[in-house]
């Protein structure tokens, strides 16, 4: 049981990063990026190919993360332009259709070029015992990186001028324009950040289990669930939701079977929308737009 909970927490921290990336895109642009998981897979394949090409692992990871960030910026500057011109339900629907199409394209191209592609980063070393449970070194690294990045994000959005500017656009876009903030610049930067987070999750995930070329859809679904449960406009909420859902996922897989854990997660998301539509820590209803 303790092992399942600890594994769940480690998994959940990764979920948290995914959720933050998804949440930001939705809060700023009203877009649920269904290609989000594919950005992670794109990064994973690039890292794997760079490593096999002889580039040191750390440098390869940086390359992959930068590539995913670039994919985010490119998405904002191209496909999303017509989406931002729409309002309300049209914007959400057009955003869903276009990003879903993009997801198919990325997955199609990657499986065509590299059908067996995948990323596993092996960090060797003796397991570290924590609360009587031996944890793989890779898992500990993954958790530590996710925690550090999560803390950095909290500081960025809570205490820096630009980070506050981002939140102001989420809360009242017109108000943000009136104080001199350019919402389109903020969106571009944040789509880049959100892509980078997807790339980072690919790297940390691969330290515990392989990220394969077909794994993007699952990552998108996790990101969606976490952002719904955590709440819009809340980095802390996304992390809390990620950790809770990670625990739920691993404990239900441990006691019942892994086939049930996805259903349990989706159930948790549905329940959140019904009972607490603004999410755990969010200030707004996620069905605002």
């Amino acid at each position, binding site marked *: 049981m303790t092992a399942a909970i600890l594994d769940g927490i480690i998994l959940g921290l990764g979920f948290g990063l995914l959720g933050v990336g998804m949440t930001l895109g939705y809060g700023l642009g009203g877009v649920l990026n269904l290609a989000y998981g594919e950005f992670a897979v794109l990064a994973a394949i690039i890292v794997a190919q760079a490593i096999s090409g002889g580039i040191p692992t750390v440098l390869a990871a940086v390359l992959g993360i930068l590539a995913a960030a670039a994919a985010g910026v490119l998405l904002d500057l191209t496909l999303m332009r017509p989406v931002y011109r729409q309002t309300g339900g049209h914007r959400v629907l057009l955003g869903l259709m276009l990003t879903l199409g993009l997801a198919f394209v990325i997955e199609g191209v990657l499986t065509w070029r590299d059908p067996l592609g995948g990323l596993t980063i092996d960090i060797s070393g003796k397991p570290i015992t924590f609360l009587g449970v031996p944890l793989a070194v890779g898992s500990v690294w993954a958790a530590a990186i996710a925690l550090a990045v999560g803390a950095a994000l909290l500081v960025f959005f809570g205490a820096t001028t630009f980070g506050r500017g981002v939140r102001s656009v989420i*809360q009242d876009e017109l*108000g943000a324009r009136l104080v001199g903030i350019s919402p389109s610049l903020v969106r571009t930067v944040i789509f880049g950040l959100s892509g980078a987070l997807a790339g980072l999750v690919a790297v940390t995930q691969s330290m515990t289990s392989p990220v394969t070329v077909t794994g993007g859809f699952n990552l998108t679904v996790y990101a969606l669930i976490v952002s719904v449960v955590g709440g819009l406009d809340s980095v802390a909420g996304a992390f809390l939701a990620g950790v809770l859902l990670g625990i739920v996922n691993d404990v239900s897989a441990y006691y019942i079977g892994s086939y049930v854990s996805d259903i349990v997660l989706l159930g948790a998301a549905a329940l959140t929308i019904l009972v607490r539509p603004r999410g755990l820590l969010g200030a707004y209803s996620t069905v605002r737009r």
Partner: protein
Amino acid sequence: MLEVSTLAAGYLGQKVVEGVDLEIQSGEAVAIIGSNGAGKTTLFRAIVGLLRPMEGRVSLDGRDVTRWPTHRVASAGVAYVPAERHLFPAMSVKTNLALGAYPRRPNREALELVFDIFPALKGRLQQHAGTLSGGQQQMVAVGRALMSQPRLLMLDEPSTGLAPKLAKDAFEALGNLKARGMTLLVAEQQVPLALSIADRGYVLENGHITLEGTPRDLDQNPEVRRAYLGVA
């Protein structure tokens, strides 16, 4: 400082305001008076770039800013407080004020001015803006605008949603700002309030400027008295 010439603006191809000429000198307080639907908000939105003008020109210190996006107009020193205020509801009063100075760090002098004009905000810095009363929200909205140390402060219907006493307080605060040299452009349908702080006023009727003059001129104009002051 601000010059608007032959401006036309509206929605869906329909002009709401047309042929508007007005100018504001540095240090002046200018009122735009007019009834509901006269086009005051449309005019203001066009000036700050929230609405693209169909004709005419807006210039700031001789620079053409007609097609500038709103955030750029704001950065050039025009702070606009809309009637709906558009605060950041889930952020504290303190953060709302700090964001007024974006992208700079909040300036001590500006903050002192805000507390001087609105001492009531001092005790509410940690409160979320969304939980404030209408009068307090108005104070934060004006305070946030002041944090940018603007060269021109534009207010659309500052009395909106305020009880008569609070509306009077709000205009007293604006008079106070004017006394400290702030340049003001205020749209208001409560004519006596507007004229109480103005050096000059324009009457906007059905999208056109029909009269211009000092508060005294306007106050004694039979048209204004009949239409806005309820005097036969």
